[in-house]
């Protein structure tokens, strides 16, 4: 396996790993800010997989030049560019709501937040 393909598959593995770690954290952690952190980890993993889906080994970045003719797919990169910014905004909102909920219940532990029960 050449270095390019090693990079290619490790990118996919890192993305999948981040999504799974993030899901694990959201399901099992009890501190609200750690849940927010796990959520952003999963978000990063999804972004990495999206970029990977448009990536082709042995091709250049999509900036056209006289010396560059074969490039990777620009569309997933454009999608992820917007997705990262939205991720930051959602994480900021998540943290604020988490801080508010922990002030209301007196603890950052989600077991003490009665409003979350159903």
């Amino acid at each position: 396996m050449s270095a390019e393909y090693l990079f290619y598959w490790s990118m996919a593995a890192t993305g999948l790993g981040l999504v799974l770690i993030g899901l694990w954290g959201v399901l099992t952690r009890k501190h609200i800010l750690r849940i927010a952190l796990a959520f952003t980890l999963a978000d990063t993993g999804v972004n990495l997989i999206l970029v990977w889906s448009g990536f082709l080994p042995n091709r250049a970045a999509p900036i056209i030049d006289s010396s560059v003719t074969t490039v990777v797919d620009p569309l997933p990169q454009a999608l992820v560019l917007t997705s990262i910014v939205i991720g930051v905004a959602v994480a900021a909102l998540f943290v604020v709501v988490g801080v508010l909920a922990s002030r209301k219940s007196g603890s950052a532990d989600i077991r003490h937040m009665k409003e979350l029960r159903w």
Partner: protein
Amino acid sequence: MIRTIVGLAIVLVLAAILITVVDDYTVPSALSGVGELYTQTGVEDTGSVNLVTAVVVAYRGLDTLGEVVVLFSASTAVVLILTLIPIGANPTPPSSIVAFTAGILPGAIILFGIYIITHGHLSPGGGFPGGAVVASAFLLVMLGSNTIPDKSKFLSSIESLAGLTFGLLGFWGMFTLGQFLNNLVIPAGSPGRIISAGIIPLISLAIGAKVASELSGIFSSYRKAGGEE
């Protein structure tokens, strides 16, 4: 304990599904569909050598306008929640390292951010990453000072002005060329020059100003709320 077991089971099942999917995946050898079209005609259509910027600002400019609206509503919600319910009053004083760094670095960081914003059609970058870089300089200034300046009016007027510019540039294309956000209302020029690619640099500037002011607004309301009671 039950939470751990159930969580582990769900994660393992999902991992098994994902590994099966990836195992079936064959590495594509060529671009297909719209991606190939963008790489073949992108520079001709938009005048931007950076195809990612061409897709974000020109081809899918309407989606970017929608995304800016999403960012706006999220930052408004953050500022609203933190203003309605003040949590702390006095900011914690910065350490001497942070205070010293905040006196030196912000100018260089802002310059770098402006470079990223204005060269979005030539090299990796554009309004979103450049705006985030500029906002990080403001964050450093805020962390390094003992007082919290109230610049919310200034920030929101910059934000509104940038959003209005984006919309008006879109309508300019609609009334002259019959297409909302058509970027060739200014001639594309020769690709690769700093003044080229139609209205892409102008929209990048608007997006950069908007992202920078929105993120700075979020940071400053965090800073206001994050002090000791």
